[in-house]
């Protein structure tokens, strides 16, 4: 079943502010396994011209999962069946400045578009604006996911329905 195009244009905003703490940055640098001093050390960050340690640039692209809980993937209105497979195909980030220690971040997510590419597959484009609590724009992330519909899958058994028929 294709996705419901009526959700195009809908938006949501993160309920809670995300605080970027020393722990946040330490975890992010460890998870990406990129040992650059500017992610941990204030002096190294200042040498590059930043007032505080900064987050790895790809960190911004993780926040959609954490801040809006992958909205609207679990909205009944979207029409995505529970077993439908989701693959990230394209990710576009525009940075106004690095995310840094002490930031208090908010996210606004919008369904920018849904394109049917076949009877079985849609592409959904979700655009996220990340700003500080005070409204300073920090960066934006745009995701394009390919969603393969569950019609041909039995989500419970994880087995192709045709194989069971």
């Amino acid at each position, binding site marked *: 079943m294709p996705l419901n195009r009526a959700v195009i244009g809908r938006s949501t905003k993160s309920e809670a502010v995300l605080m970027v703490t020393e*722990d*946040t940055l330490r*975890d992010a640098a*460890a*998870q*990406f*396994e*990129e040992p*650059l001093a*500017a*992610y941990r050390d204030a002096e190294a960050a200042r*040498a*590059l*011209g*930043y007032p505080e340690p*900064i987050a*790895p*640039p*790809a*960190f911004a*692209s*993780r926040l959609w*999962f*954490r801040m809006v809980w992958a909205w609207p993937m679990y909205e009944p209105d979207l029409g995505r069946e529970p*077993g439908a*497979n*989701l*693959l*990230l*195909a*394209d*990710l*576009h*980030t*525009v*940075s106004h*400045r*690095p995310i840094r220690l002490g930031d208090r971040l908010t996210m606004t997510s919008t369904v920018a578009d849904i394109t049917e590419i076949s009877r079985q597959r849609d592409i959904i484009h979700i655009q996220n604006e990340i700003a500080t609590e005070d409204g300073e724009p920090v960066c934006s992330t745009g*995701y394009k996911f390919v969603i*393969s519909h569950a019609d041909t*899958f039995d989500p419970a*058994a*994880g*087995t192709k329905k045709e194989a069971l028929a």
Partner: protein
Amino acid sequence: MNAKVRYEDVSVGQELPGKEVSVDRLALLLFGGQTMRLDFAATHWSERISRSVGLPDVIMHGPFTLGKVLEIVNGWTGDPGALLEHRIRLARPVPVPDDETGAVFRLTGTVEEKLSGNRVRVGVSAASPEGQVLATLQATVQLV
């Protein structure tokens, strides 16, 4: 921003120092993010569910692939904050086998265009050791 690369020293077609990076199963698991609860989609930790949806194994998180691919750019400029814009196209899911190496990315990059304001556009390709393209990236970087 304070990249260690000077705009005037860079020419179109110049190659970035190549890099090989790998991600093993433990790194993949940790990337889910216990404290941040970032992404525990089943295809990132369950072989059973991955296979049931037609994947060969558990796969990389897209943002994790992005982070590994950006290392070649950050290594070149020395300043991760010099990235003004980047776009990655993920050509195919990247399986992370449960062996001693995991997923391997061979990264190559080229300066594609010199822009105004001491900015350059670079193109990066990430390939498997067998030469299959896993992802391509274009980035705009602020040099000095």
